[in-house]
């Protein structure tokens, strides 16, 4: 939380850059008018005056607090309007909210990250966090899938990460085209290619609900303990304080108790996907 500030009063932030990531995904770089810090996996509410606000997990490094990247897929009214911005506009940021990734629990372990589509946005922030203290993790493996090669976001990041000791990245596409000679198949098929010690590994899953569901099922099939599967859940977060109840998941509220849960914490709830 931003101590001393009204949680419902957004921090003003100038849009200083827009990066095209894919045909329907852009990264918006914001410069808040005062320092803005967050922990990886926590989310913010991004406000566009006169239009509305939507929840997003920052995709930038949690170690940088004078600017904030938010990667947004065009998927509805507010995101459509945000995609029409040209740069220089003022937006509002509320938050950060919720419970992010408990990275301390990953120390000494192999961290496997399973990401799909725009789900790579929160993961990018997590990767910055893991890179910052890379000696604390045994190994980090990113498996990322996109529908087509064009839909892949943060393309340069994959080359950079593969140069880092103990970091490995694997990519897949559901449907290949002439530009692609890599792995073809849904992202879960990448899990068949990587080596890890099950008893000392944790998995972070983030992506569209369909991918989260099938990804989790595959991890359970492989033999992962539900306590070692970390999911970033999305559920219509609105107030950010557990007051409005829009984001109820079982007897928890995603905006307050999530968005990061272990599968063990949510497995008995109905309609988790």
């Amino acid at each position, binding site marked *: 939380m931003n101590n001393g500030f009204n949680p419902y009063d957004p921090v003003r932030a100038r849009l200083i850059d827009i990066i095209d990531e894919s045909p329907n995904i852009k990264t918006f770089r914001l410069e808040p008018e005062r320092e803005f810090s967050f922990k990886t996996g926590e989310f913010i509410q991004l406000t566009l005056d006169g239009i509305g606000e939507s929840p997003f997990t920052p995709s930038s490094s949690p170690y940088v607090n004078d600017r904030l990247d938010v990667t947004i897929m065009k998927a509805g009214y507010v995101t459509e309007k945000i995609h029409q911005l040209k740069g220089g506009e003022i937006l509002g940021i509320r938050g950060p909210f919720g419970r992010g990734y408990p990275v301390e629990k990953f120390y000494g372990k192999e961290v496997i990250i399973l990401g799909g589509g725009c789900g790579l946005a929160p993961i990018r922030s997590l990767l910055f966090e893991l890179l910052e203290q890379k000696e604390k993790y045994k190994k980090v493996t990113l498996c990322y899938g996109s529908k087509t090669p064009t839909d892949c976001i943060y393309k340069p990041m994959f080359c950079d990460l593969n140069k880092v000791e103990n970091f490995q990245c694997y990519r897949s596409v559901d449907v290949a085209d002439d530009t692609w000679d890599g792995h073809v198949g849904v992202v879960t098929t990448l899990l068949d290619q990587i080596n890890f010690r099950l008893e000392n590994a944790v998995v972070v899953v983030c992506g569209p609900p369909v991918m989260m569901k099938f990804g989790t099922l595959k991890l359970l*099939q492989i033999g992962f303990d539900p306590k070692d599967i970390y999911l970033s859940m999305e559920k219509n977060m609105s107030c950010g304080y557990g007051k409005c109840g829009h984001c109820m998941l079982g007897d928890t509220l995603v905006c307050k108790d999530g968005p990061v849960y272990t599968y063990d914490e949510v497995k008995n709830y109905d309609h988790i996907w």
Partner: protein
Amino acid sequence: MLTINKEIRELKFFMEFDEKYQHSLFELGEIKEFAVKEIIIKETQELHDLFVILEGHATLGITVPDKGRINVGTIYPGQIISWSALFKPYISTAVVTADVPTRAMAFNAKKIQAWMEREPEFGYRLMRFISETLSQRLHDTRFQLVNIVTI
């Protein structure tokens, strides 16, 4: 007799079998090599061999009317292709092409079938491996299907 190194012995397929069966498999198997883009299996062709990829990788595709070939999966060392060689009507369901220089071990399907009948323990292990493979491919296909219908 083929030269079988440790890397091959430790491929997922061969790890399914104990040393006795591994030995017999290596005696029965025939190494085949495929160049880049070479077709390993044609779609709807009659199949006579079960293949295990040893080195390299191959892409599995399906021909769609008016669209041409659509690639749906990549097969890596230790994984099988042309499992349909063991099941009626013994016709391939996909086209498989080598992505890079690829080596595979081919097993004559009729000999494998006879062996499974003769030694149920071997048959059980092979069928367990094939069932797991098909279960995974079914899982992936459902994932892909749900992806498509929810767009």
